[in-house]
């Protein structure tokens, strides 16, 4: 099979890569692009560990073909902090112990950020349902949900 040549923007950087027509975005991110922050927990769209945004839309990169990235704006966990400054969500997760083993955390953060980008004032049940596709086997979710709510409150405070 001939490889496809794809041009995209990844975390703000113009990026080109070659991929097989049937290769997933997750495999390209973790392989040739070296962005291993996105994780494979299932490969079937059921765990959210591979969450990224595609033109601002939250997607499972394990279900997306790499070829679909042509011309798109891709964001991953690696693009979340600004230099050394953690995103408020990352800071809150750290403070509140909203992670244990950390393997679900990149996906959780990307998904939570996508929520706050569209809804700066979510209710607890909106947070719980938004994150219902992200499996965490360690924390029991309580601190994750609370960290997202507290971050939202702080970010609203900050723009005021």
């Amino acid at each position, binding site marked *: 099979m001939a490889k496809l040549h794809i041009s995209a923007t990844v975390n703000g950087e113009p990026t080109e890569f070659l991929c097989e027509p049937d290769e997933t975005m997750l495999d390209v991110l973790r392989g040739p692009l070296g962005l291993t922050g996105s994780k494979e927990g299932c490969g079937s769209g059921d765990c959210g560990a591979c969450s990224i945004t595609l033109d601002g839309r939250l997607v499972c990169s394990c279900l997306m073909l790499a070829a679909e990235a042509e011309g798109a704006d891709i964001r991953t966990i*690696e693009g979340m902090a600004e230099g050394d400054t953690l995103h408020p969500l990352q800071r809150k997760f750290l403070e509140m112990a909203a992670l244990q083993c*950390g*393997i679900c955390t990149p996906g959780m953060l990307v998904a939570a950020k996508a929520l706050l980008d569209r809804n700066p004032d979510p209710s607890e049940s909106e947070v719980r349902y938004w994150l219902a596709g992200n499996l965490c086997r360690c924390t029991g*979710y309580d601190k994750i949900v609370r960290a997202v709510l507290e971050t939202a409150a702080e970010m609203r405070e900050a723009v005021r």
Partner: protein
Amino acid sequence: MSGSAADGVPASPLSYLDRPNSYIGRSVARPNARRLLAGQGQYVGDIVLARMLHVAFYRSPHAHARIGRIDVAAAAASREVVWVVTGADILGICKPWVGVLGHLKGMKSAPQPALALDRVFAQGEPIVAVVARSQAAAEDAVQKIAVDFEALPPLTEPEAALAEGAPVLHPELGDNLAFERRIEVGAVDAAFAAAAAVVEDTFDFARQTGVTLEPRGIVADYRAADGRLTLYQSSQAPHMMRALMARQFGLPESDIRVVAPDIGGSFGIKIHCYPDEMATVALAILLKRPVKFVADRLESFVSDIHARGHRVRGRMAVDAEGRILAFVADALTGVGPYSAYPRTSAVEANQVINLIGGPYVFPAYRARARVAFQNKVVMSQYRAVGHPIACTVTEALIDRAAAALGLDPAEMRRRNLIKDDAYPVTSAVGLKFEGLSHHRALAKMLEMMDYEALRAEQAALRARGIHRGIGLASFIEITNPSPAFYGAGGAPIAAQDGCAIRLDPEGGLTLQASVGEQGQGTETVLAQIAASVFDVPLARVRVVTGDTDTTPQGGDNWASRAAGIAGEATLQATKALKANVLEIAGALLQMPPARLDIRDGKVVEAASGAARFDLAEIARMVYFRTDALPEGVKPELMATRHYVPRGYPFAFTNGVQASYLEVDTATGAVTLLKHWVVEDCGTVINPLLVAEQLRGGIVQGIGGALYEECVYDEQGQMQNANMADYLVPMAAEMPDIEIGHVAGTPTAESELGAKGTGEAGVAAAPAAVLNAVNDALRPFAARVTAQPMTPECILRALGKLPSRRGAAGPAFG
């Protein structure tokens, strides 16, 4: 973040460490979590080595079959494929192993090969390994393998496996009974004859599996030039693995290095030897190239160990006042075709009969545990081994007896829990309790949940046709296991742990510990202890774990032992280092060391607090200006201590959980409204991390209670071996979990006094939920005795669906 309490867990008083700058009892955040948040964690799947190859496995589609011709020609012809390997090809280097332990008397198991030889005994057993230049190529080539099977009748149910005349899976063993143990204490028959009430039920616990979000994985790297084998393994037990690999491959332990990098969840799943990982190591040695194996989710479901899978018949006799006179328990489990190596597959059943009735006083006990071989995936130990089963049986019977006598469930517990001032206590079964706080915990729980008000609310809603239930579950939890177990049973599993600590040239501390980090916060807790004892800011302590080359020999992480055992080793090592530093400072200042102290990173005069040296000055003198040190001063800025608990076989913790929920009697759906836990784990080092261990554990326990089940058909095929069909708890369904604490019972075995806390959540959550469901169903005279309590199971209990317990019996085990 810092503070003195999280979730109402107070800081514990601790004389030695109770200094102004102590971090003990403070909810500090985990410094090592930053890289995980940035997506810079390094898990096995992220590791790439030069010349690395990938392996994928052809696994048995049958539960039981004879292997005929294996056609690998098409797979071997693939351009990217390096080697296609069958069982016979690696038998020379990788002999089958046997998962038995000497102290489990009479236990037996058959030799288990890395790749199946002439027969397969379970779905998912690896038969052929394909090594290729990429993972995708290896997986594609596996699809091209053709194997002729002669299907054999599968033996799936443990009862059938143990029945007279059953076909024997491994004829050389004589029968299918892997292990049996009986307990008989006190006058059981007399107790039942004299009882005011007897309650009895048969409880079924489905098979579950751990579903670590990071699947198992290993990169094996054998360098022929120096004969060194390095394993990067998603493992909670690198020291144990090194010893096992040395035995398995005939290499000296000193030539093996096991590195456990970031681990994406373990929960007991990643503490066993798996055939696919053994095969990967064998291939790396034979190919003299790094070989990587990472399980995909589908193969995880049929190759990770399963657990629980029990049927327990339980009976309890009580007198007219509700006092327990006797328990009888008969536990049966099926553990697949082999006992897992090296911890075996008998410990869960053994633990079940050890722990039944654990929180209570009762004089007589009869129990039997039987472990059968069968054609399903291997079962072994998963978080809180045996606990949720024993706790559910016990607590459900307590509630039934309370109902039979017209007692409130809380009162029934009050009458039977071991008294708080009775310790030390040896139970009827022989469990030794140093100190527990069941009554304080129960009182705290009832106050925290406002039990009376909740009962009133329940009654009011019941009148309106809304069926809510309240469930209580008292529990004990095994932590800090002593040397009496695996080591005594012949496995290279240590009960001691070590810590080496040194003063760095810039005045910080580096601590190397034999336990590891899987996210529970081990490194943070050890750093808190060292920072408190030495009195330096926490940020100046660096902790190294997870590498057998750079850490002391020790017991790794299992059975909630890191804080209690490695924590004490850390405390003692830090004290020793501190004494060395004060001796050096005393020599430099010509003052007795006893008149000096370290405070906030400086050597000070103890009486006045006047600063005399920065720690960095001492370190620089000792390391680089030894010429300027007074005669006789030893340049010892590193200290190592090991610790092992010996006085008690375990440091038991105790506590109580409660669940409040609503059952929709039309659909059978359960809505969790609230969950509470009170736990006493002795000295609390980091209340936030304790709270999160409890919460995470409770949610895993709720998973077992309501959702999780490895569903098998009669052919031994797992029907839901994927993440869409095997249900685990997700954020949307989980209740608020409130945590309370009581004045604890630190263990006096160690100066630190800490016990573990990793199992407690899982131990009692299923019992609390089951009791709450049955409390909700009480008006219907219906009850549930099986887990998971799916809507279907609840509707069956309500008589709205036909009962499944017919001639064939329910599926379990």
